[in-house]
């Protein structure tokens, strides 16, 4: 950690700090989300906050934006200590937040979206429009104020969000993962805007876990790990490797699979799978074909929103493809066309499913753990017998999962919502690996879980693979993809555009292939 501490003193002093957080601690039932966080943001700089999913970045920003009060610690804005009870307090203190998921009304115009709730500042008449035009100019928003928001693209919507916070008088702007939804050219344009605005005296807090972006835009970077700040560094002098080490710590679990267990027995065969998209003439899935073999992990890489969700939901039967076939091959080599089968039939045929959003798709939050064990398995032993549930069987099998998968819970009667994300996910992985599946569809299996749970989930997937399970892995974590997969296919705008060998590919190469900049592109 010596590399992390050393540059901490190197941060240049730029006068009174715009934001100073001292000793911030926030506890949630069962977890400490932030403990003793210290952060100093100088006025007029772009300050990146880095950390893995679940490290506590979002909680910290919610505290700074007044959405959650800290349990301990103080917040000082421009040298003055403030109490932020709600976002209105934060806005008054000059803080604005651009959320990752935009807070805009589609059926209102750009102007209405900006003025909504801020009518007291300049009214909604000429003065307001003049102010809007001025801010639009400054942020590079070219859409007319009377354009309906639904007609705008993602990049423009983001600019509307930025204009919205500026209109409310923000001088300190929090950008929460602003690049997650953008394509590379849009990222560059956003960064240009941020640089110009920085020169105009604005201060930015830039939340990200993408190191190259942080190095491109930030003046200072603070790393958060496990809820606390581990160090501050100058991105110009620190290497990506050092930064990554700060983010994950030394005990970084490695997702590497050792020897190949790939067999030549196909389990899942997709050919020409096509799915139309609502309200668009471009297909959400366009002629997707691949085969997953027993003992193979096939990784799908891609920037989110390029059809991965649709692919998974089509394979699971939750969406109806407009063309192509899905075949599942059983142990005897008998291929079965499941294109028209329902979700339950597919699950019964031996597909386990780890959904990308566990609270929406994998759990009944208010139900106890053993009831959650039944979900998706309601027709099968050991949790059901014919039309009746086997409650004793379900309870016993839940006990087994809790034991074998190290689910940290006082019992199987607590509601699923009471568990932490990592423990919920361990329960889900345990459930989906029960009942001898032939194929596991794993969508972001370790998203938002702690490192301990991550290591355990990786290990379980690896063991199942060694036992002959076919795995389709979708992940935004490139290290996870490269470490676990036997084959990687890259998905871009609903198509599989290239293939990569996880033994030789680097995250950088994969990253450029994902954005369509790499070679081997079909377009």
């Amino acid at each position, binding site marked *: 950690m010596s590399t992390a501490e050393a540059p901490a003193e190197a941060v240049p002093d730029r006068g009174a700090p715009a934001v100073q957080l001292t000793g911030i601690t926030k506890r949630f039932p069962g977890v*400490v*989300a932030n403990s003793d966080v210290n952060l100093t943001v100088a006025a007029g700089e772009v300050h990146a906050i880095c950390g893995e999913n679940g490290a506590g970045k979002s909680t910290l920003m919610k505290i700074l934006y007044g959405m959650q009060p800290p349990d301990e610690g103080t917040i000082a804005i421009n040298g003055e200590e403030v109490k932020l009870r709600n976002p209105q307090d934060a806005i008054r203190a000059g803080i604005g937040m651009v959320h990752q998921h935009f807070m805009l009304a589609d059926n209102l115009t750009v102007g209405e979206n900006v003025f909504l709730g801020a009518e007291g500042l300049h009214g909604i008449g000429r003065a307001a429009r003049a102010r809007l035009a001025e801010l639009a100019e400054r942020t590079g928003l070219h859409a007319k104020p009377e354009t309906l928001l639904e007609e705008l693209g993602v990049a423009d919507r983001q600019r509307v969000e930025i204009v919205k916070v500026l209109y409310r008088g923000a001088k300190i702007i929090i950008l929460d993962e602003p690049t997650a939804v953008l394509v590379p050219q849009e990222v560059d344009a956003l960064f240009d805007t941020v640089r110009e605005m920085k020169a105009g005296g604005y201060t930015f807090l830039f939340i990200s876990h993408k190191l190259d972006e942080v190095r491109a835009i930030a003046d200072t970077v603070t790393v958060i790990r*496990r809820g606390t700040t581990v160090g501050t560094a100058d991105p110009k002098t620190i290497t990506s490797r050092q930064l990554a080490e700060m983010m994950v710590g030394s005990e970084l679990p490695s997702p590497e699979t050792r020897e190949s267990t790939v067999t030549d027995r196909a389990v899942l065969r997709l050919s020409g799978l096509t799915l139309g998209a609502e309200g668009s003439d471009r297909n959400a899935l366009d002629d997707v074909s691949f085969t997953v073999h027993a003992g193979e992990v096939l990784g799908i890489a891609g920037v989110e929103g390029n059809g991965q969700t649709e692919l998974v939901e089509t394979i699971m039967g939750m969406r109806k493809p407009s063309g192509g076939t899905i075949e599942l091959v059983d142990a005897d080599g008998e291929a079965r066309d499941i294109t028209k089968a329902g979700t339950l039939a597919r*699950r019964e045929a031996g597909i386990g499913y780890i959904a990308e959003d566990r609270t929406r798709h994998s759990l009944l939050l208010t*139900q106890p753990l053993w009831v959650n064990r039944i979900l998706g398995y*309601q027709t099968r032993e050991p949790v059901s017998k014919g039309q009746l549930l086997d409650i004793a069987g379900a309870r016993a099998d839940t006990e087994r999962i809790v034991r074998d998968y190290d689910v*940290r819970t006082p019992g199987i009667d*607590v509601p699923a919502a009471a568990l932490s994300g990592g423990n919920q996910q361990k329960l889900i992985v345990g459930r989906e690996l029960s009942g001898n599946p032939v194929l596991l569809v794993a969508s972001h299996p370790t998203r938002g879980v*702690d490192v301990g749970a991550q290591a355990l989930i990786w290990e379980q997937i690896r063991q199942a693979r060694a036992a002959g399970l076919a795995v389709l892995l979708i992940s935004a974590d490139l290290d996870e993809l490269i470490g676990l997969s036997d084959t990687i296919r890259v998905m871009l705008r609903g198509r599989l555009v290239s293939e990569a060998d996880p033994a030789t590919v680097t995250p950088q190469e994969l990253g450029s292939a994902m954005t369509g900049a790499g070679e081997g592109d079909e377009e």
Partner: protein
Amino acid sequence: MTSWRTKLLPPLLAIVFAVLLSAIALIISGADPLQAYGTMIGQMFKGSTAVDTVNLATVYYLSGLAVAIGFQMNLFNIGVEGQYRFAAVVAAIAGGAMKLPPVIHVIAILLVAVVAGMAYAAVPAILKVTRGVSEVISTIMLNAIVAGIIAFLINADQFGVQRGNNIGTRVIEPSGRIPGIPLGSGTLFGFVVIAALIGAAYWFMLNRTRFGFELKASGESTTAAAAGGVSAKKMTLIAMLLSGGVAGLVAMPELLGRDYSYGITATQMYGFTGIAVALLGRNHPGGIALGALLWAFLDTSAVSLEQINVSKEIATIMQGIIVLSVVVAYEIVRRADLAAEQRRVGRALAGRKGSSVAEGGAV
């Protein structure tokens, strides 16, 4: 576990709260609350009031169950009112026209009632799954329409028979009646037994069968249920039909146990009472039974208030307050319980190792 607390505390709190608030209303209207409550309770032991209460509660219970089935799937079946009235008139007409041996006659009438209730519920169900029409809107509409249907069907030109000033369906033969159980000065509906069996079947379906699990799962989270292979549309359709089927039985205790003919003056509003009773009983078959008894008690004993010159509408006020406070109390207790549960999980785990983000992960 704290389940007894989540289950019993809210309704008790709500009732105590309602008693206190009604006492204030009584004082304002110039009456002595203790005397009023005393009179209401005393009424229970006079004449056939106790038996009447159970009889009325039977009707409320069926209505409450019908609403609760919908609630399990997140459906707000306001249409129990229309469904039971439609089923009642159809079953009364069919029952009056049938000539069948005892028992079989009764079963035939009940079947007609269930099917008619389902048919009337099928309209909003199909609209909901095919066109996404809110069941609240469509069932309210159908409630309004049913009055016209009844007026048309029991017109003397169709199936009605004029009897004095009243017009109703043809009287059902004794073979199609359900004998009552004489008790004190009153007669208990034989249907009480059937209602209890339906309640037990409801409990069994919900807690022990695959279908019940799918219904609850779908009601709690359509998305999670879909990922688990449960079709929300199918569940919506079945839940609505089942709800309508049970609703079809609501008028049967009175039709087959007391009136034998469905007239233009038959009591209405049982369907709406069912909503309140289901809320009060938290969709639990035992809870609904208690709720139905309480509601029926307030209804039957309120009459006695007029003896001491207190408006009997005070009972209606109490009913309203009870429902409102039950809803609020459940929500408060539910939230407090979840937080307590999370703290408990946190504490149980803190003993093993320091509780930190590393332990809990996502924030």
